[in-house]
Structure formats: C-alpha cells, structure tokens
C-alpha cells in the first residue's frame, strides 16, 4: 500500500484479485476495478450480494494484501472501520472499547462522541448487554474516536429493522456533513446509497469492476423522495445495461 502525502483522496486501482476456490482453481473476484474518492466526500459501493464488496473493503483496509494493484489512502492514512459484525471487545465496557481503539483521544472527546450517539447511559455496559443496533452505534463511535482520515462502513444497516436503520442512516448522514470525514460505505441497497453518498459506484457482477458512477448533486439534507426516485431509476438502467453487456 503506498501513501501519497500530497493527494488527499482515496484512490483504488485493483488490476485483479483471485480467490482460491474449494476445488483449488482460482476464481477471479475483482478485475480492473478503479475508482477514486475526493477528500471529505462520501462514496458508496453498491453491488449485488457476493460480488466481492467485502473483499474490496478488506483490500482497502489493508487486511488483504494478496491482490495486484494499488490502493492510495487519504493523507494520514488513519482508518476507522465499522465491520458488518460490530467486533467489539466483549470483555471491555463500551467506553473502554473506545479508549482502547483511540488511546490518544481525550475523555471529553469520547464522552461527547457517546453523547452524540445517545450511548452515554451505556458507557459502562459490556457489549454483550447491548442490542445489535446499539452495538453497531458503538462500533461507529469507535471508528470515529480515532479521528479517521477514512471511514469505512461495511453494510452498516444490515439486520437492523427499518426504524433502526433509518435512525442510524440519519445519524451517519449528519455525521458526514458535520465532520467532513472521507467515507466509503459498502452496501447492497441502492436506495440507502443514494440517500447517504455524494458518489455512488455501481459494481458489476463477478468479476466485479465499477460499471457506472453516479454523482449525486442534491445534498443529503435536501434529498426529496422524488429526486431519490429519479436517481434510483437512472441507476437501475445503468445496472440493466451492465447485465446486458
């Protein structure tokens, strides 16, 4: 992974990435997948289940080095990641989970963060005592506690009920607007991506590449149902075209 100090953007160029399948034959998961995300913007990677989204996210996070290509992280290169499962330390309290991830954050900053996610009353609880929705919020708070240069979210709304998902989406939207943290969200839900992101990258089926890029001009806060519907229709056409190709 190389880091270019001058370019404050996320740049991903994956020539190809293969998985060894059970039979021993390598299977191509990603091919010629390139995109870049300007600093302070929110991008969403959207694709069907199993198209290699999580693989791509792991490559960007530096957890998988077995690929050919190059990933340039935003200057600083501090990563805040929210995994699909919260991956909190079950033997440490909520506040300790934040402290351990961000040893240099001040107590005041951490308390403010917990308050922002309405987690103050759970500060001393163990993760096992929290519902999934709460645990996800803790995981997001933890990722933000390190003041990341890039925030990675892997399907942050999966297995939450509609109301909880909507609530969390609103929180993340507000957070992106306030903190201007460069954010990359991976999701299978197109509507979710449109409502949250400034740029939506539509991935093709396997081997995945960026089939189309959708720039969303309407700011998150003033996104109307009609505008979102229009964007969704446009995106669906692009997806159809990708399949037909």
């Amino acid at each position: 992974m190389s880091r270019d100090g001058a370019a404050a953007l996320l740049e991903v160029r994956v020539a190809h990435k293969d998985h060894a399948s059970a039979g021993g034959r390598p299977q191509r998961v990603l091919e010629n997948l390139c995109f870049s995300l300007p600093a302070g913007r929110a991008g969403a990677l959207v694709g069907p289940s199993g198209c290699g989204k999580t693989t791509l996210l792991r490559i960007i996070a530096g957890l998988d080095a077995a690929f050919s290509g190059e990933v340039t992280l935003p200057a600083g290169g501090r990563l805040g990641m929210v995994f699909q499962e919260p991956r909190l330390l079950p033997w440490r309290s909520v506040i300790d989970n934040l402290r351990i991830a961000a040893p240099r954050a001040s107590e005041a900053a951490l308390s403010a963060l917990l308050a922002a996610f309405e987690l103050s009353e759970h500060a001393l609880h163990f993760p096992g005592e929290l519902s999934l929705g709460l645990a996800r919020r803790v995981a997001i708070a933890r990722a933000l506690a390190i003041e990341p240069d890039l925030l990675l979210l892997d399907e942050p709304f999966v297995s939450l009920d509609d109301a909880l998902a909507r609530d969390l989406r609103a929180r993340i939207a507000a957070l992106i607007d306030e903190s201007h943290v460069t954010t990359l969200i991976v999701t299978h839900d197109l509507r979710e991506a449109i409502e949250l992101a400034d740029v939506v990258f539509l991935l093709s089926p396997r081997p995945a590449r960026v089939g189309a890029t959708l720039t969303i001009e309407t700011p998150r806060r003033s996104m109307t149902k009609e505008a979102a519907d229009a964007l969704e229709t446009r995106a669906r056409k692009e997806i159809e075209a990708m399949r037909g190709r």
Partner: protein
Amino acid sequence: MIRLLSLMLLLALWQGAAVFADPRRLPGPVPVFEAIAHEAETGALFANLAATLARVAASFLLAMSLGAALGYAMGRRPALDRLFDPWLVILLNLPALVVIVLAYLWAGLTEAAAIGAVALNKLPNAIVVMREGARALDPELDEMAEVFRLRPAARLRHIVAPQLSPYLAAATRSGLSLVWKIVLVVELIGRSNGVGFEINMAFQLFDVRLLLAYAIPFVLLMLGVETFLVQPFERHVSRWRRRPARGQGRA
C-alpha cells in the same frame, strides 16, 4: 454450606473408621490434630510448609510462564507446532519419576534440580492447554486490532489475554494440584526439608500420625489457594459474561 457439610461428613467417617482400626495404622482426628499442634509449636510445621510452598510456587510459575509463551507460539504458528509437537508428546509421556531422577543425576541434589524437574513435569500440560487457547483466538478481533493499529502491548492486554484467561485458569487449577504432588516426590528423594521430606521420615518410622499431620495442613493450604486466589480470579475475568461458559468472542 453444602461444602462444609461434606467436609464434616468426611471427618465423621474418619472418626468412625478410626474407632475400629488399629490406632497405629489409622489414628483418629484428635491425635492427628494434636500432632499438628505439636509440630506447629516447635515451628517445624511452618518451616516445612513454607519450604514446600516456595518450591510449588517457583516451579509452578516457571512452568506456567514458559508453558504460556510456548503454547501461545505453537497455537499461533502451525509450522512451529508441527516442529515441536513430537517433543511435546514425548514430554507428556515421560514418567515424572524419570525426569526427577535424571535431574538429580545430572544436576546433583540441588534446589535448582528439584524445581526444574517439577517444572518440566508440568510444562507439557501447560503448553497443551495454552496452545488450545491460542488456536481458539478470534481472527475477527485480530483484524479489528490490525485495522485500528493497536500496539502490541494493547493487543496482548485487551485482546489476547482476556481470551486466554479461561485457559490460564484451567491450566492453573490442574497445574497447582499436579505440581504440589510432584514436589512431594522430589522432596522425598532428594531434599532435606519440606512436607515430602517429613513424610519420608514418617514412612521410615511407620508414623501414620505424623504423615497425616503434614499432609492435611498442606491440602488445606492448597484448598485455600484455590478458593481465595484461583476462583476469585476466574470470577473477575469472566464478569463480562452474563452466564459462565457461554461461547466467547462474539458480542
């Protein structure tokens, strides 16, 4: 409460058996406790208990720290595991007495030989348990630590140690009882103090009273260690579990 009752029952059984037995072969609780009191008065009891306890502590700490480090390394690195697993099997199946006699032959009747021999007897056991623990470490939390760039010290303290602590407690529990039994054997063969030495004396003199007068206080001492050190430690490290023995690693 039940525990106390159970101990009282054992004492009553002993007393009952002693009534019918030859007092030289099985003295009752009263003469044994008198012997304990006598040994305590002369100070010999405490000196010998202390000597044995010090050996138990030294060899236990040696075996556990080495065993934890080696077991962790073998659990994390399959190549290392394959390389040293045959050694481990050999060590596991080497009789304690062989190790003890060899240690005395090679290093003389010294304290180092005694402690080393006991530690070597416990070592493979500790390695096996800790290796199991290291194999069960959650890879998802390792990835989390990787992404958040936790320092090695923080990983050890907050990620590895909490996952290994149940294994550490299990190894401690089985280890303490094993170690103190073997310590008595090394004392019997090649030391001039300690509970094992006194038991050897009692054997030579056919003095069952003296034998029990040393065995019982030490058993009680180890029972105390278990109740007041090992169990509270276990409770402390598993306080995050709503129910004990639930699957670990996941929130």
